[in-house]
């Protein structure tokens, strides 16, 4: 499992450097969900449930649905708590799309944004016993690809991707 952690750590480093470029969000993908949620913890549960319905529709098995749900939950919590700071005047925009190869989730908050490179590596020995700071890492660990970028006028867009098995 140490090897797995090392591989995940490397992938996490790639996320921080935003080197994941094989996300083809607008390449003929079919939209499965497009909804704006209020900045509440209840929205986290609702969005997770809606996206899991979509994942089930696509045909992901129970384990993959669990991983997708974990990533979505972490992302929604970040958007509601750290991005929008529970501000009820701000929303979290969630879109889910399906292409031939990818199940793509985009979650956008209206917060002030953050420098992804400044997020401490939760696997570093100095950070292992920190109370928080694992959400971004877990999103990357549970999905096949991930990208974080600032959006204008303010906010953060996180794109989470799970590969789809070719349909027979």
């Amino acid at each position, binding site marked *: 499992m140490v090897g797995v952690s090392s591989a995940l750590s490397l992938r996490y480093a790639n996320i921080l450097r935003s080197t994941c470029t094989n996300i083809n969000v607008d390449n003929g993908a079919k939209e499965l969900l497009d909804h704006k949620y209020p900045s509440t*913890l209840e929205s986290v549960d609702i969005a997770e449930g809606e996206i899991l319905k979509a994942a089930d529709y696509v045909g992901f098995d129970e384990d993959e649905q669990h991983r997708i749900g974990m990533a979505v939950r972490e992302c929604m919590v970040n958007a509601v708590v750290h991005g929008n700071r529970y501000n009820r005047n701000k929303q979290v925009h969630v879109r889910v799309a399906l292409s031939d190869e990818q199940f793509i989730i985009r979650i956008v908050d209206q917060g002030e944004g953050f420098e992804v490179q400044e997020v401490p590596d939760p*696997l570093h020995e100095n950070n292992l016993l920190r109370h928080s700071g*694992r959400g971004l890492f877990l999103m990357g660990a549970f999905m096949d690809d991930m990208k974080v970028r600032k959006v204008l006028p303010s906010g953060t867009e996180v794109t989470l991707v799970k590969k789809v098995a070719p349909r027979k």
Partner: protein
Amino acid sequence: MSVKIETRKVGDVTVVDVSGRITLGEGSSALRDVLRDLSAQGNKKILLNLSEVSYIDSSGIGELVSGFTSVSNGGGTLKLLGLTKRVKDLLQITKLYTVFDVHEEEAHAIRSF
């Protein structure tokens, strides 16, 4: 299902039986409160039984870590019992599996204190 937490004594060990989901909000705050109260009451040997926990998010992991740290700082010991595969995987990928003393059988865990 939200979280349900019950405590019981086995000798001088306090066993905390947790079931349900430990996620941001009610679940993680309930666990935090229980561990804080147990420490404040002077309990030094705490065994956290997670065998009925179906789901932990990063907030829940944070509470496990904080509980472990606060109990240790108070001169006590917090150990984990009965991790499900998913919780075990989560602790492994976050490199926390080796931080905690994890047991599969309660009797063995009790004797290990």
